């Protein structure tokens, strides 16, 4: 990072950080983990700013960096701090405003990270299969199979019979 590029970086990050954090929260379902992932992604963007500023689409680049940070931090540290169980735990409604879909969120958190990333990228970020494949560095076929596996896992965690909230 050249010092004279730093204002550019600050400008970009100041605008992008709320979006990156929101995306990280969708991936992690946990505000602290989302902060960790966002911080990691922002740091990676700082270190590789030369590549970001030369990228055709800096937003797409930053999204890829964020997803990679999510997958890496999961491997590096988060897994050692989170106990995974086969059951969806009962969640106390400590923060009512964030609790409406907690059951779904907790179930999504139990989906293995790579499958979860595929589900979030496809259905919440609304990205086409080819772009998800590019972000994850795998084939389109792999994205499709991970989608199917992820949805199966999610169905199982939610108790088999999933009722969809039709109007939402």
């Amino acid at each position: 990072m050249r010092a004279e590029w730093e204002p550019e970086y600050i400008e970009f990050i100041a605008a992008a950080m709320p979006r990156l954090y929101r995306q990280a929260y969708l991936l992690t379902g946990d505000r602290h983990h989302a902060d960790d992932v966002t911080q990691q992604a922002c740091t990676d963007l700082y270190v590789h700013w030369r590549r970001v500023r030369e990228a055709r689409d800096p937003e797409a680049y930053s999204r890829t960096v964020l997803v990679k940070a999510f997958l890496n931090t999961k491997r590096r540290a988060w897994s050692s701090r989170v106990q995974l169980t086969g059951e969806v735990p009962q969640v106390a409604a400590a923060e009512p405003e964030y609790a409406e879909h907690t059951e779904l969120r907790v179930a999504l958190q139990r989906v293995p990270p790579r499958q979860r990333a595929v589900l979030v990228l496809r259905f919440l970020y609304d990205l086409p299969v080819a772009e998800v494949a590019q972000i994850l560095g795998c084939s389109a076929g792999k994205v499709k199979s991970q989608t199917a596996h992820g949805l199966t896992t999610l169905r199982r965690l939610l108790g088999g019979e999933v009722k969809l909230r039709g109007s939402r």
Partner: protein
Amino acid sequence: MMDDEFGRELLRPLLAEPTPPSGLDVGGVVRKGRSRVRARRLMGTVGAATVVLAAIPLAFSVVQGAPQVIPTETAQEFAQVPPPAPSPPESCVPVRLPVPDWAVSSQVRDGDPTGRYLVGWAATAEGFRRPLLWDRGTLIVLDTTSDLNHIVVNSAGVVAASGLTWQDGKLRNVAWVYRDGAFTQLPQPGADNEFIDVAGINERGDILGSDNTLDWNEDTGEYHPQQLPLVWPAAAPGTFRRPAAPSGPGMVRANGIDDDGTVVGARIGIPPRRGEVQETFSYALVWSPDGTVREVAGDSLTAVRDGWAISNRKEGVFRWNLRTGADKRLRLPFALSVNAHGWVGGQWRQGKTELPAVDFGTGKVLELPLPDGMTPDTEDSHVSTISDDGRVMGGVVSSGPDTRMAVQWSCS
């Protein structure tokens, strides 16, 4: 495509959930980035060393006593600047500028047209950048704890800078001026979500900067950055004015101010947003002393001095004569500064090696030597400032991991 419909319908409710607030702030993120760069460099040298990086709070101290002056043995070497010469210098002698004991790395960021003053910063082990002023090679540590993003100086020794600091319990980006031994915070439009960058100062003391604000857009659910230039006129201390912003989309950035008040900069397209493929763009801008603004050839003007402006474009560096409108492509691939003769300081590349260099606009490029014991590196050695007579230059030299240091060249 059953999976697609099912997945979308199943997961969509999560988009309607509120997102809890983040504990991150831009200042902390930037410092982490700097620390990582430094840690990577250290790791490159010492392998598996563990780097402990502590964060300390910032506080803005407004003039607490006199600045700390550290005389040095090298001061003598800078006391006699040769008289101006019409011909470009042919050889330069590098000297490492004195820095505080705690400095992990240092840089020269700007200098005045006479070559007497250089300004820059020293980075602490925690990644904070502290302001430094050199007066004929003698170091003056400016006693403020603001964490700099830019610093400039003129030949009256007036220093202007911007940086992050804690103020009223918030991390804010502020601009300040150091004049006659005293710091004064510059007035700014005042929004809490504002970032200020000081970009330049001219000989009469007008200070140029830009401020960024982040406007929340309800429709897109995102912050949209806005950027506009600011001038703090020397003739009306305690006030600022806004040069007219040209119409059209994008952010307006000011990069340099000439002695007659001419300002150069750019209008820059914002990065593309979700759901829109939007080309980034950049147009060069010139504000005349009467305040009128016009777009000129090129995508950005980055510095100006006595009617010469420079532009780093994708295809190379161009020097533009504001009086005649003529522009000329230079040999340097990257430029930062220009003097009254149109001599341009920047960086020269040999393969992957980056060297400090000056382009005189005559086809001649002078590579500047590194101090004894240093070898060229692949990153960030450059000339940040060149005096009007070409006899004093300041810049940065890096010869390997974590060795970035402030250097002055005396040329003849």
